[in-house]
């Protein structure tokens, strides 16, 4: 049985099924991170002393990571735009760069984490480090999740391009929307944890 509007848009809503679903999913993600940011505010307001981010964290590495992640959002859009222009090899190139940027981000994050552990800064050290590790850890899981989806679309998932290019383009667009959210969450995390 064929489910209607998986690729074509429904005239009265102007959207296909996947597009609505991904936006709903993003809304729930906003609520997830929103709750954690709210928890951050409540913990910080209730605390007697709160360290400046730079006391524990490496601001320059995080700035570099911000640049890496924003660049990956740009290449993600370019990957999707290449598909719209029916240029599959450029799509592969740009999506590959996006995945690599994700990898670079995680490697830098790994060095940050191990430096903390090396100095004995653990989640249990204080509430600031606790929320730092929780927020960046959960964000890191999202980066891995987004990379997994992108890697699948880069590799085996791209077989759909040959049979149903419109459907494949939609999938890349939706994966891109998720990747932008991952990027956006970091853009909030960076000032909140490192600068404020």
């Amino acid at each position, binding site marked *: *049985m*064929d*489910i*209607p*509007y998986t690729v074509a848009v*429904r005239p009265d*809503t102007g*959207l*296909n*099924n996947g597009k*609505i*679903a991904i936006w*709903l*999913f993003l*809304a*729930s*993600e906003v*609520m*997830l*991170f*929103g*709750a*954690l940011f*709210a*928890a951050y505010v*409540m*913990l910080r307001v*209730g*605390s*007697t002393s709160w360290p400046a981010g730079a006391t524990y964290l490496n601001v320059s590495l995080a700035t570099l990571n911000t640049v890496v992640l924003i660049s990956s959002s740009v290449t993600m859009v370019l990957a999707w735009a290449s598909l719209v222009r029916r240029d599959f090899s450029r799509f592969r190139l740009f999506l590959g760069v996006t995945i690599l940027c994700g990898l670079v981000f995680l490697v830098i994050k790994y060095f940050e984490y191990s430096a903390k552990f090396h100095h004995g800064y*653990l*989640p*249990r*050290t*204080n*509430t600031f480090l*606790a*929320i730092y*590790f*929780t927020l960046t850890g*959960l964000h890191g899981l999202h980066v891995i999740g987004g990379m997994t989806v992108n890697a699948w679309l880069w590799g085996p998932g791209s077989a759909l391009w040959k049979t149903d290019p419109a459907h494949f383009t939609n999938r890349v667009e939706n994966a891109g929307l998720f990747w932008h959210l991952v990027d956006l969450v970091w853009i909030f995390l960076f000032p909140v944890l490192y600068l404020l």
Partner: protein
Amino acid sequence: MVTDTAVEHAGAHDAHEEALGFWRRYVFSTDHKTIGIQYAITGLLFLLFGFTLMMLMRWQLAYPGRALPILGKLFGEARMPGGTMLPEFYNQLGAMHGTIMVFLGVVPLAVGGFGNFVLPLQIGAPDMAFPRINMASYWSYFVGGCVMLASFFAPGGAAQSGWTSYAPLSDIATAGQTWWLFGMVFLITSSLLGSINFIVTTLQLRAPGLGFFRLPFFVWAQLVTSFLLLLAFPPLEAAAFLQLMDRQAGTSFFLPSGLVVSGQVIAATGGGSPLLWQHLFWFLAHPEVYVLILPALGIVAEIVANNTRKPLFGYRSMVYAVVFLGFMSFVVWAHHMFITGMGTTMAAFFQTTTMIISIPSVVVLTCLIVSLWGGSIRFNTPMLFALGFLPMFGIGGLTGLPLGLSATDIHLHDTYYVIGHFHYVVAPGTIFALFAGVYYWFPKATGRAMSEALGKLHFWGSMVFMNVVFLPFFVMGLAGVSRRLYDGGASYAHAQHVLQWNQVSSIGAWCLALAQLPFIVNFFWSAFRGRRVGENPWEATTLEWAAPSPPPHGNFPRLPEAHRGPYEYSVPGSDRDYTPQWEPAGA
């Protein structure tokens, strides 16, 4: 719109369905009807299991410290030495009763079961928008349920900090609490997948002609419910992560500085906030209350319209009310926290929003009651349960008002009055509506009707004993008996004059269990031996009754088209007292 290709497709799918093996057809099925039935049966089993936990607790409450005859020995020395329940085991039963009833029983049955089975049929869709995600949703729920059940065998037993898992108690509880948190993560994933699917299906797969104000009220209720699940559950997931960090990584999100446990200051950095857990928990759990009640209102609306043979009174007002209720349910959560010391400004805000949210609830209930006016009512089993729902839900709702006002809540907070209030909403309220739904849609799911005689026996037994169980709670609560006492208040001077009600309530609970036997017999007997019925045995108007009973894979042999609103009963000038949505005008 019917085309030849659509008919050919339907034929091809029948052949395809035959080709699917047993596992793909009945176990790992992507068909919304099979998934709905899987959800419903699993949910009913969990309801029975959660009820069994409570029947054990009711023994301890009625006869504190007395050994449970015969059965008591089965639970082992770690739980009931010599048949007498240990306080730790009592706490496990209490926490898991709440968790199982809410997250594994009522919601999966109301949303996963009825939503999955009925919603696509009512909007004339061939299936859900994402059938495989739908299957993943059920199996995620199933795994979550197994984790919860397995937690009883964790070292120290299952979670025992109440279904609310209040910190800091839950932070320092035994391993069962970690299992509880993992179980919740699976359940949250399940409801996330389900709610996205429901919303997309409702928006995208409506039959031609089925505009939003031609949707049955049940679909509206499920749509609003899905938004609540989608947006309210993630904060609980965040809270679960934070609590996992507290328990596993030694953080202090919910542990205040200088926390003393058993006379010792515990080794933790402190600086956390127990109130933070309550805020995050109730941000989910208040909308969750409406997740429990909205599908029930939807089911009752369908059955009331069908059996009064009249259009629903104020259908549009009900739709607006239920949407408004959905919005408001996100800004009332702290009325569960009036006596936590969060301050009078907060209390004033949340008691105001709480009074406001009671208005749409009253609008919906009033519309349902006024719908009965002047109807030629058919008193069949689903209608009896729906009629029973109205006053029971009314009692539950009205007894909530004193709890929503911060001054009266000081006396009533955390007493048996609260238990009475929300059980009236959920047990003789929602669960009656769910029973009504089972009797109403059973013929659609199986092609056979349930027995009316057994159904009426089930209804009257349940109606009487539900009240025997729950009415005494108001008396005990007003006397100030706290809800979480292992001995039911026996060691408290102020509870002495109401203690006898514990026994009344307990005997009521055991009789209520007996009253469910006709239902169990009826369910299985009717599934195989019940009277065969056609596609529209209730002479109803909504689209699910246009499909064959039971509907095949793909649901409709010809895709239906909606020509009118959902409740065109007793239209003047018509030769029948119902005009189905799918019949073209002038036919």
